[in-house]
């Protein structure tokens, strides 16, 4: 059981983004807020892709000084960023290859993930030939295949057609519950708050409120929160 303690500051042009959050293992936090409030910046800082000051503790161990590849933070990007030159199978096998497995062994390690996300039939396709929903499953499988300690999802629904979002969201909620470690979901859509146990609201780089969706709806701290929970 781990605890993720975030205490990071990222300087930006208009304002600093200050993120002070805790997420326990097995729990999911939805980080919501208006566009431009700094949500993606927080994600980037957690993953180590954006420079930040402060600490990032996982079970007391500070990850803030580590480079991105050593942090064990699995990130599903808004644009998914699947490797276009690799097949679905090789995309999901990538984390194993990076850990030192030979190509065949890495592919074998990817098979359980392909099964779990129903990707066997698509295994030899390339990302360009996938639908939005299929690509998202691949991105999630790939991130989980790297056996991360923390799972972070950036606007998971935006790359999908509106019609399938509800269905995909239900599957995603199930996958998140199945994940052992702490999970953070970034979104601007209130429907995505259903993916998480708690919601934290980021406005202009500051956490302005935190609680369950019901608590936010009952006592909105800002006009945006009130509109968000309506």
């Amino acid at each position, binding site marked *: 059981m781990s605890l993720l303690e975030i205490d990071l500051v990222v300087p930006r042009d208009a304002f600093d983004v200050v993120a002070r959050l805790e997420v326990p293992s097995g729990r999911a936090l939805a980080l919501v807020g208006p566009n431009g409030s700094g949500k993606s910046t927080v994600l980037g800082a957690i*993953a*180590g*892709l954006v420079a930040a000051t402060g600490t990032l503790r996982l079970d007391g161990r500070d990850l803030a000084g580590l*480079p*991105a*590849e*050593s942090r*064990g*933070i*699995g*990130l599903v*990007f808004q*644009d998914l*960023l*699947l*490797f*276009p*030159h690799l097949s679905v199978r090789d995309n999901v096998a*990538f*984390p194993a*290859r*990076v*850990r030192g497995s030979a190509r065949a062994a890495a592919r074998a390690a990817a098979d359980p993930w392909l099964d779990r996300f129903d990707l066997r039939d698509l295994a030899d396709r390339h990302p360009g030939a996938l639908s939005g929903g299929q690509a998202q499953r691949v991105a999630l499988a*790939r*991130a989980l295949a*790297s056996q991360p300690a923390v799972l972070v999802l950036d606007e998971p629904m935006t790359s999908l057609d509106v019609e399938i979002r509800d269905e995909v969201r239900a599957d995603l909620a199930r996958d998140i519950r199945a994940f052992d470690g702490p999970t953070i979901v970034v979104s601007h859509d209130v429907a995505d708050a259903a993916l998480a146990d708690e919601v934290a609201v980021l406005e202009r780089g500051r956490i302005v409120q935190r609680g369950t969706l019901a608590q936010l709806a009952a006592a909105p701290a800002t006009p945006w929160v009130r509109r968000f929970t309506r």
Partner: protein
Amino acid sequence: MPASARRRTRRPGPVVTILAALGLALLVLPLLGLLLRAPWGELPRLLASTEVLQALGLSLLTASLSTLASLVLGIPLAVLLAHSVAWSVVPRRLLRAVITIPMVLPPVVGGIALLLLLGRRGVLGQWLAEVGVTLPFTTGAVVIAQTFVAMPFLVFAVEGALRSADRRSELAAASLGASRAQVFRLVTLPLVAPGIGAGAVLCFTRALGEFGATITFAGSFPGVTRTLPIASYLAMNSDPDTAIALALLLLAVSLAVLLALRDRWLPGVVR
């Protein structure tokens, strides 16, 4: 848009078609003339002559060396150029202009510039001469001249590939645990490889056809500096049949390079 509407994309109008046909004719008819007037019966004898074989061997050797040099120096330069978008306007534009110059400079002028730099009395050349290194009239000079004119093609092709490839894939790779070296090897290089391949082909064929800078800087001596284009130009004076044979050879080598590298390594460049 329904599938049937997509299939019915509008065909080019008559004006476009006529102009395109004229353009195609301009490019194809001279080659056709060459093929029609070629002394096909004489070709085996002409192609087996020492001067032709020497010129062919020299051209292939120097063009290959120039392409190699262009890869070693040009890929890092392309990386620099791709990074320069983060610079301020003046240095960024200056870098791009400087790399473009050998492409627009008349090759003979390029040759003269090389001579003034690396010739016996050249700015750098005089120091080289003191340590016993003379470049003009050597095969090395041919490689330098060819690299000078051909490298920019490779630089821009690779830069284009670097810019269009989604470099954020590298971020994804890092988040999945890949070190910088692994990112470069497993993600960046494969993404950019087609662009490098296309650039290398352009570079090779440009180096193969290079004439003005070579003859001015390196001179013209059989087996040492007389490449296929130079030999062909000289042969026009006395023996047009040999000149045509040499021209056909150049054409054949260029086509062979383009066809051999199609699709397998250069998807999208030559289908």
